[in-house]
């Protein structure tokens, strides 16, 4: 399972970076989304995968006696997903506005104000 996840994370990062290098605004956003998902999965994987051991203390005992699934990475991922959701929503509105104003989605054209002044 770890190997599979590791390969998938690698593919997500690679695909995300590839998409970011394209010249289209839409592909740029897709690239960012893929990278974000890759990062979330990475937290999940590096938080150690433990199957079928919820971190619930049995009645009567005070501590968890055996190995358990760490709940912290899941809390982190949840936070990160919510944040990136907000940012992605903003990004999509931003590219829509940019497209309307600049009338192109080619990143090479979006530097009217960047020449040496």
């Amino acid at each position, binding site marked *: 399972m770890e190997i599979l996840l590791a390969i998938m994370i690698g593919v997500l990062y690679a695909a995300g970076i590839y998409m970011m290098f394209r010249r289209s605004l839409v592909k740029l956003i897709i690239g960012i989304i893929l990278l974000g998902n890759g990062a979330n999965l990475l937290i999940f994987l590096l938080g150690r995968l433990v199957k079928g051991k919820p971190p619930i203390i049995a009645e009567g005992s005070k501590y968890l006696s055996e190995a358990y699934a760490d709940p*912290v990475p899941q809390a*982190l991922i949840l936070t990160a997903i919510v944040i990136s959701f907000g*940012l992605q929503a*903003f*990004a999509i509105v931003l*590219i829509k506005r*940019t497209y309307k104003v*600049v009338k192109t989605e080619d990143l090479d054209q*979006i530097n009217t*104000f960047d020449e040496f002044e």
Partner: protein
Amino acid sequence: MTQQLLIAPLLLPFALAIALMFAWFHIRYQRVISIVGSVASLGLAIWLFGRVWQGGIISLQAGGWAAPYGITLVADTLAVTMVLLTAIVGLAVSLFASGSMINQRLRYGFFPIFHLLLMGLNGAFLAGDIFNLYVWFEVMIISSFVLLTLGGEKAQLEGAVKYFTLNFLASIIFLTALAVLYGLTGTLNMADLSVKIALIEQRSLVDVCALIFFVGFGIKAAVFPLYFWLPASYHTPPPAVAAVFGGLLTKVGVYAMMRVFTLMFTRDPFIENMLLVVAFFTLFSGALGAMTRNNIVKVFSWLIICHIGFMLAGLAMYSELALAGAVFYMIHDIIVKANLFMLAGVTNKITGTNKLQMMGGLYANYPKISLLMAIPLFSLVGIPPLSGFWPKLSLILGGIEQGHWPLVAMILLASFATLYVIARVWAEAFWKKQPEFERPAGFRYFGDYPVLKRVLMLLPIGLLALVSLYIAFGAVHIQTLAQRIAAELLHPEAYIEAVLGSTKELMP
């Protein structure tokens, strides 16, 4: 009781933002609430600074969850100094925005979002938990995206695409580094990390992790070679927004680096060499960029990059003297850079342009305002005894002490480059006679504004100039402060004890 009040610098801007949202269509009320609230924030920050200065590090375990399991807020001297500087710049920008910003932009909600940005900044400075730091970074950048695009002009949108992409990318890299760090140590509390990272045996993995953190923070701090988003976007928003960005946002990246590379990652030659090389080239490329631009705001943007190099150099040298220089430089830089962007806003309103060739005649037409503007301009250069001089002295002495000759030479060169650039700005914009050119129709010149607005634009420049003068002539006080911060950074035991100390005996 003091501990609980540590959360006040986060709650106050949040409450202000909510109050401002209720006054959404009443711009006049918004101005008053924002200015009064900023004064209150400043009072709070001064009080907090006083408590930490006298009583040492304060930490708050949110919800009573003992560290390292809960979220911790920590106020050490560096954190409260940054909160204080944020409050000073926040007040200045509040005043400046009330005077300079057009009503259409204010109606889109500039003030509420501005206070949310300040909340993000305060949160980032007080966070004692690295994931919490990530969350505050996000609060900060999403507010900054909105501020940058407010108004929706073509130039702004184009700048925003670059700013957004690279800052979002930086967040993802930061998150990746967090994942690796959590995998290595199983904790996120910075004090706890400081203890646990030292125990890891696979140092190469730790170095890789440090490198990922460096790239993430490096994009935010605009260091070489990750700075390209900054000069592409900072000249596009209105001057009040550029002032907050230029003064505070890149410094958060530097602050995060100072935390991470003193508290968490202990020094080894790899990290040290990397920081030295990056500092060298940041100084070099920033100086070159500033010398070749002809737009006053772009010149200042490139100077931000150049001067990030000074702080990085101090961090790279890692002696108490050099680190104190870096902290001193940061204090001076936040005040002066925020002031410069406001100054550029006023010169734009006087001359009707940002292009240096087209500007001119400022000194002939407005001699008093020009003299006021001379203070931040020449403070930046660091002509003794103005405020930029003292930290550079510490940095150069620190560099000589340790024999980092190339870096010392580059610091001197970058200082001369800054002198050249500012002298050029002074000669072009202030002394030269303004050439005739087609004035944009319907442009509102400085003289057309009512007196109150003009005062509101000049007051914050005067306020920050006064602070700069205090930093210059009260340099002993600032140096004492900077040395104390440097000592705290180099000996994080007190920080660790303030966070973990009380919980040691609770651990099973």
